[in-house]
């Protein structure tokens, strides 16, 4: 069935304060729409439930990338094209630009926003593994003020998150302290462009004095929402990267992963490919000369 444009209201207040005031007036009634790469697909198919939408597109206060001394602050309205084009960000936190290059193709990257990708909360979201591996925080805003939440605590269930009905994601804070970390991101899907991940893994790790001093593993499609792999991380923290620790970490991943069977893949395939990705990263990490 085709969507009926007359069945939906869309407002474009044009600035952040006006959008927040609208959300505060009747919390939960308005659905924000940024680049439309998710909601317009549902609309075309006649399965867009939201009747009242408020446009975030073109709001300059949300579309920016700012370099600060200890972090990058990425506006939720920054498109993946914006992130790929930001030379400093791409050089320092390359996993973000790499993930951005996976989102659909150029036309999608010019419209899809980082905030939209994270708030939409697909378990397979392309930007999530990098955001988890980089230990980012998300900044949320409402007329009541702003608050910051670790991105690893943002998702609470399948397509559920900590946003209050009157809140928007305003920005992502990405710390600039990964220059010495080994960084890894790999997506397994049917095609490089335009394909949704079967499974993806992002990772950062710091090896000091022969041992893993800090490690973060962010996975897509291994749980109902993008998630850190805390058990696999714990199996590596403080340890040397040896064949034995690699095997232990991979079995922890297999134990904690909760993937599903769907049209793109099977749970079994996802679990095992997830473990293979971790193994690939750890083999690279193990080869790294100790500083």
């Amino acid at each position: 069935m085709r969507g009926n444009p007359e069945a939906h209201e869309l407002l474009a207040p044009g600035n952040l304060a006006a959008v927040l005031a609208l959300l505060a007036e009747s919390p939960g009634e308005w659905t924000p729409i940024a680049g439309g790469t998710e909601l317009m697909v549902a609309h075309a198919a006649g399965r867009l439930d939201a009747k009242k939408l408020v446009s975030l597109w073109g709001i300059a206060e949300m579309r920016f990338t700012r370099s600060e001394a200890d972090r990058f602050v990425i506006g939720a309205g920054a498109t993946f094209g914006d992130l790929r084009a930001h030379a400093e960000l791409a050089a320092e936190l390359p996993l973000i630009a790499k993930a951005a290059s996976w989102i659909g193709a150029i036309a999608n990257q010019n419209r899809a926003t980082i905030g939209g990708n994270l708030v939409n909360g697909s378990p397979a979201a392309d930007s999530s593994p990098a955001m988890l591996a980089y230990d980012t925080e998300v900044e949320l805003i409402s007329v009541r003020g702003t608050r910051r939440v670790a991105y690893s605590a943002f998702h609470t269930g399948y397509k559920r998150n900590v946003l209050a009905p009157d809140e928007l994601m305003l920005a992502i804070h990405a710390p600039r302290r990964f220059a010495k970390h080994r960084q890894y991101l790999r997506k397994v899907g049917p095609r490089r462009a335009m394909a949704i991940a079967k499974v993806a893994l992002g990772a950062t790790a710091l090896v000091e004095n022969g041992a893993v001093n800090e490690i973060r593993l962010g996975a897509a499609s291994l749980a109902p929402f993008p998630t850190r792999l805390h058990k696999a991380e714990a199996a590596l923290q403080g340890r040397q990267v040896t064949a034995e620790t690699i095997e232990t970490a991979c079995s922890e991943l297999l134990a904690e992963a909760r993937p599903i069977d769907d049209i793109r893949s099977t749970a079994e395939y996802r679990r095992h490919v997830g473990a293979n990705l971790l193994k690939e990263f750890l083999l690279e990490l193990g080869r790294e000369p100790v500083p």
Partner: protein
Amino acid sequence: MSADWPAIRFIVNGESRAVRVPAMKRLLDVLREDLRLTGTKEGCGEGECGSCSVRMNGELVNSCLVPVLQAEGAEIETVEGLSSNGALHPLQQAFLECGGAQCGICTPGMLMAATHLLARNPHPSLAEIREGLAGNLCRCTGFIRIFESVIAAAGSTRGHRGPADHAR
């Protein structure tokens, strides 16, 4: 009824236009139905195939995913704007000469994606052409002749030795 909708104004191929349509109407449908610019095609209707590619403020977008209100004040370029005074755009000429179009459904989108690519990168490598057109699907011509058309229009391309080089 239609007069009840507030006017939404934008520029299409250099001309100011105003439409009174629901704000959630897709830019694709406004172009085709309200402005009768039927060069822009609908393929999948979900941002996967690129048939509906247009440029909005210089950015390549899928017009099936743009609610028309978000195009307010924007400059839109469609395939109808490529030729000028009856003279084909160099990309259109190249698609003709290299056999870059067969059934033609994907062609307007291919032309807009290629226009966008060459505007950013006048002499793209084959890998850059492949990436620039990765969101545009063809199911009859085949991609090789389309890539050759873009190479021909660009005049030359880095690291590319001849039109058939990549076909082997």
